[in-house]
């Protein structure tokens, strides 16, 4: 019985990590109109930055062995800085060109991580990474600790993004997305606004990357294959792009469903079939949503329906 709960906690943790990533992407793509495929790249930058800064390992040439909290802060700042560097040249480009640039960035990051083994340990990567509170609980119950951390992170990020989405800044984002010339004609700065969005996303992705590392417990380049960005995008599109709850619902449906398939693994034979079924389920799910509900299960409309009340009810 306990086994099921342990398993469920682990699935939920992954769901929440993806939900957080999809929430950040919603901010960027849903309101900011940035077609970003670089999520995997930035997550890799964050994860490696965190591990290199905190790991107790003498094999790499630079290991300051910072405490966990300092590692997280430095990682957020560094990932935000990388986003800034990527954003300056790429944000001047339009939709699909921006998409290609961020995609390329992801690929380059993976390549760099694989080749620079003096600091990243190359394709081998790091194993048995130390996690906070590891010494206090058994490995089995650690799943619950991690679920707590992931839940906390998701709530903070969700509240933060919702706050920004409803603020005047969020309104400018949607305005720029809807009509760039009109936004210019009322004096909005397109490039600067987008750069802010991109850097904020970078900082947030950096902040949750350690949770992903703790979840997997090891770190190697293949964890950050570009398909990760596609999965986050799919979750967002299924749930409802632009809606506050869309990314969370999408992650629950997509990750929950594919991970729950492990329940059905009675034999090795089944396992192979089920592993092959996962991309099929994602694909079919995406087609069904696109066909019958292109705005996603929860459309954006409902998110800002009462935008005016935010101001007017305060009389």
């Amino acid at each position, binding site marked *: 019985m306990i086994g099921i709960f342990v398993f469920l906690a682990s699935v939920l943790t992954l769901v929440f990590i993806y939900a957080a990533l999809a929430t950040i992407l919603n901010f960027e793509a849903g309101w900011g109109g940035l077609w970003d495929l670089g999520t995997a790249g930035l997550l890799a930058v964050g994860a490696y930055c965190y591990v290199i800064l905190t790991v107790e390992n003498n094999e790499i040439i630079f290991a300051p062995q910072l405490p966990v909290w300092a590692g997280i802060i430095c990682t957020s700042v560094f990932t935000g800085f990388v986003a800034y560097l990527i954003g300056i040249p790429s944000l001047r480009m339009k939709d699909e060109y921006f998409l290609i640039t961020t995609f390329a960035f992801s690929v380059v990051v993976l390549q760099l991580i694989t080749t620079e083994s003096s600091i990243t340990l190359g394709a081998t990567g790091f194993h048995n990474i130390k996690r906070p509170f590891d010494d206090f609980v058994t490995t089995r119950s650690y799943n619950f600790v991690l679920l707590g951390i992931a839940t906390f992170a998701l709530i903070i990020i969700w509240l*933060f993004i919702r*706050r*920004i989405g*409803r*603020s*005047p*800044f*969020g*309104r*400018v984002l*949607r*305005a720029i997305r*809807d*009509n760039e*010339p*009109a*936004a*210019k*004609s*009322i*004096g*909005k*700065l*397109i490039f600067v606004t987008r750069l*802010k969005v991109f850097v*904020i996303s970078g900082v947030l992705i950096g902040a949750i990357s350690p949770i992903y590392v703790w979840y997997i417990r090891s770190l190697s380049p293949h964890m950050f294959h570009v398909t990760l960005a596609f999965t986050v995008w799919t979750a967002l599109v299924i749930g409802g792009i*632009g809606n506050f709850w869309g990314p969370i619902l999408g992650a629950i449906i997509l990750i929950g469903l594919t991970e729950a398939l492990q329940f059905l693994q009675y034999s090795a034979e089944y396992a192979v079939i089920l592993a092959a079924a996962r991309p099929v389920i994602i694909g079919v799910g995406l087609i069904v949503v696109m066909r019958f509900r292109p705005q996603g299960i929860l459309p*954006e*409309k409902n998110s*800002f329906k009462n*935008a*005016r009340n*935010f*101001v*007017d009810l*305060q009389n």
Partner: protein
Amino acid sequence: MILETNNLVKNFGGVKALHSASISVAKDSITGLIGPNGAGKTTLFNAISGFTTIDSGSIRFDGHEVGKLEPSNIVKLGLTRTFQTPSGFSSMSVWENIMASGSDYYLESPFKALSPNIFLRRKEKIVSKKVSEMLERFDLMDFIDKPFGEISIVEMRFVEIIRQLMTSPKILLMDEPASGFGPDNLDRLRDMILWIKDEGITILLIEHNLPFILNIVEYVYVLANGEVIGEGIPSEIIKDKVVIENYIGKQNVSS
């Protein structure tokens, strides 16, 4: 003169869209810009408002040379424009559309979003009050919560004008505001334009509806093939031979 363009030249490939176009707009006036299709009227607007770069010439607005500035910077100096096809943020409500232009850069920082609710709301309320006043004045209150993409083209034009007015301009450039309007709405538009003028905002107007524009403007420029072929007060311009040949056509004038 609040706005002066001097020998503006703009080529699109081999096509001379503007060919030494020089106009000047007096402060607090309503000035018209007419001309046949393809005369370069919209290109001239785009050049003045920074949406098109110019090949040569100069644009002086209110003591600044704006020929090389970005649209957003030109708006901050007090020059704003509307578009030939009414433009807006289609997924956002009419209220949000106008709020977006009424709130300032300072309020729109992401860090301001994290400041206490009370602070943001107080600032937003000030802008929101102005939005409601404007919508009330032009009889558009019914549309306040409708998405911009779902209102009629006539309302879109009015909302767009209000949105641009929220940037507190010194001059407003209007690109064919009356196109697609019936007689009732033409009267509404005329009242609106006259009200804007009374607020101390200079207006430069492109329009194809000659009875409408010649009735309302104090001075008019006629553009053809990228250059000014005539200018004057409306009652004189309709008698000008060159203008008649190029644009109005003989029958229209004799009647």
